[in-house]
């Protein structure tokens, strides 16, 4: 038996790959559910019902998907250029804390001014946080995996320092959380009596913008060329270092924007558990979408649905809610296999 690279990857295979991967992951995880002593169909039924059944389920899933779309886009933008930004978590927190710091002060601006300005600040905070690793990478060849990864811890500890110290809300009864942002800084709700906010629309716009840039802009083609073959791109006169820095900054901006939107639309303040690992989950989302910006939206919705549904499944059937993590992780692994099989075929 040997593997052979396909001459052309059929378009159907690219669509079928994530679907097959998710189905494979769900069937693998059904073994775990059965082992936990629950009925597989009933458990998955509860999961689906909770995350997609009814207005509440759907809005809750889309609310959870919003930060995942941003961090997924952040991963896709960087990975396309082969800049391995593993630090979306840190950039997310920097965007969030910047918005919490500025948004809690009343400058007397109208919402039409306040909201865009805060979003820009959040994006810039994320970009600033990745600028160091990006410059170190192109100037000295420092591995960005290490620097971006380690800066995650710096970001979380910094946020922890701020929310326990100078930024602590005096009315929080001693809980480590920042002062809430003022009303004019809050993103309005999208659906009444739900937590879904306009941030979701922003996320969709961001996905469309990234898709357009990748497909139609000089910057997009340069990024893709650098990612596929830096030596050939350099030889063709593309300024590889500049493209890498731009892609990294873009990635940081998207992650920072994600953090800003989460604070402005959902939480209103920052705590150290603002993100239950949106940075790492963003990498999974991006991989599930094979770095396609438009594919990131459904991929993020899938991952969000698993997290939303898992709690209900745990309550109703006694299956540990960690099963959501297992499903998401398994689907990433299956996706890698599925993508491989889309690119190659097995021959006797």
């Amino acid at each position, binding site marked *: 038996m040997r593997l052979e690279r396909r001459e052309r990857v059929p378009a159907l295979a690219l669509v079928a790959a994530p679907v097959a991967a998710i189905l494979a992951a769900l069937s693998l995880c059904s073994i775990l559910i059965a082992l936990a002593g629950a009925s597989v169909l009933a458990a998955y039924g509860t999961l689906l019902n909770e995350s997609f059944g009814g207005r509440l389920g759907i809005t809750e899933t889309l609310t959870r998907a919003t930060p995942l779309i941003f961090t997924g886009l952040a991963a896709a933008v960087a990975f396309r250029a082969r800049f391995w930004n593993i630090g979306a978590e840190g950039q997310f927190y920097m965007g969030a804390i910047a918005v919490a710091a500025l948004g809690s002060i009343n400058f007397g601006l109208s919402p039409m001014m306040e909201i865009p300005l805060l979003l820009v600040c959040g994006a810039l905070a994320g970009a600033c946080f990745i600028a160091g690793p990006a410059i170190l990478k192109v100037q000295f060849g420092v591995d960005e995996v290490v620097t971006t990864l380690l800066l995650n811890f710096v970001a979380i500890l910094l946020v922890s320092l701020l929310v326990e110290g100078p930024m602590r809300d005096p009315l929080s009864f001693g809980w480590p959380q920042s002062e809430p942002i003022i009303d004019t800084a809050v993103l309005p709700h999208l659906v009444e009596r739900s937590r879904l906010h306009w941030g979701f629309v922003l996320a969709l716009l961001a996905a469309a913008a990234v898709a357009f840039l990748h497909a*139609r*802009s*000089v910057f997009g*083609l340069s990024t893709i*060329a650098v990612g*596929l073959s830096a030596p050939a791109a*350099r*030889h*063709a*006169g593309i300024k590889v270092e500049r493209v890498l820095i731009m892609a990294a900054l873009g990635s940081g901006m998207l992650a920072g924007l994600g953090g800003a939107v989460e604070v402005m639309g959902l939480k209103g303040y920052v705590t150290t558990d603002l993100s239950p690992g949106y940075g790492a989950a963003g990498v999974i989302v991006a991989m599930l979408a094979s770095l396609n910006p438009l594919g990131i939206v459904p991929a993020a919705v899938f991952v969000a649905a698993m997290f939303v549904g898992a709690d209900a499944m745990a309550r109703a059937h006694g299956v540990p809610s960690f099963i959501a993590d297992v499903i998401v992780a398994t689907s990433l692994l299956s996706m890698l296999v599925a993508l491989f099989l889309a690119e190659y075929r097995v021959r006797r």
Partner: protein
Amino acid sequence: MTPALELAGITKQFGQLLANDRINLSLGRGEVLALLGENGAGKTTLMNILFGHYVADAGSVRVFGRELPKGDPAAAIAAGIGMVHQHFTLAGNLSVLDNITIGTEPLFALRSRRSRARARLHDLARRFGLQVDLDARVADLSVGEQQRVEILKSLFREARILILDEPTAVLTPQESERLFSTLRSMTQEGLSIVFISHKLHEVITHADRVAVLRQGRLVAERPTQGASRAELAELMVGRRVLHPSRTPLPPGRTLLRLQGVSAGSTGQGGLAAVDLDLREREVLAIVGVAGNGQAALSRLLAGLSLPTAGSIEIDGHHLRRVDPSGLQQMGLAHIPEDRHKEGVVSDLQLYENAILERIRDRRFSAFGLLRPRAARAHAATLIEAFDIRGAKPTTRTRLLSGGNMQKLILGRNLIEKPRIIVASQPTRGLDEGAVAEIHRRLLEARSDDAGILLISEDLDEVFRIADRVQVIFRGRLSAPLPIEQTSEAGLGLMMAGEERHEAGTA
């Protein structure tokens, strides 16, 4: 007497490609057989099947009458087959002795039997003229010496049949001669030899018999005695190839001048104070054995590195800060040595590669946004004008054959009418038809007043299209010689470092 080697009905298919189609071949004891064919004809596949790296779909391999198990290199070695690959399989940081004995001793032996190995190797080296310092580090050896180590390694493992894949590709003409006399002395002791080649003259001079492969089929098998180059070439290509001929043109003004240019560290592929003058309407060839500074020169003229000393002038303008797009705007086109790595982004579509070097040109983008329709139209023009076969603008570039990929790279440059063309190994690995096509295009550009700097290791190519030649050796360039005043032997000696006044003239 049973033949040393017998291949019967060997068939191997890779996807759509039939790499070997029912090949029958035998090798007598003490015989030198040349396997002739273009790139992609299936020579290397056949040898890899023989050596057990690949498993054939059908057919059998017999060595001294006994059938070899499939896909088992260890069995092939045990049966007495030794293989010298085109890319050596040596560990650079180990000594020659270690490289040869590695894998022949039990892993947990308490003491190694080095002195016995050493004595045997001295004996082998003496018998076959394969002198190398057994204690030298392999990385410090020349390519010719490394090849001797590879051959010694096979002999040490008691090979009776030696297979050499393009053994002369990296050697100077003199080193090649020496290799063939070694091979001859081995056959006198009863060893059998197969060497793969696409160089007709060495096949005719040094092999007893030649087998010609074309598109996976064995198309001819005959003694070399009485065979002519033209006849073999036609068998190999399947048709008569018309090579373009160079007509003398009066050269014009100087386009590109290098004065005392150094780059990198000499001795390690750098350049040491080289001078050259490239004029309008001429092809200036820089010829030398690989690794003597060609790569540094090529990178310099691609705008990928800066000289550490000396000056580069284009049209009399001194270059200070160079980058690839800057040089391109000055009318310099660069054809890189490695098509797949530097020439194109192979996973992009053809039309994207067609515009990649001019992505910011107003024809292909406006306000930072691409104009895909214009780019596709441009690619269609290139496909038409440069005869890029079997391709559409949206074809994935990876799927092009080497020749068609090179036509794309050359075409996207030539269509802009560059004044200076720096071409590094432009025809390496291409079939004869594509070689003739590339040469024709370069000569056309020359008639259109361009100056062409041809960096090449292929003397045939140099004699076909160059007007003047400079030899590169250890980072230094010889003075330019008109091609009419040189000979293959003379250039060969200069490529090996001999001074011109001793040996340069014909």
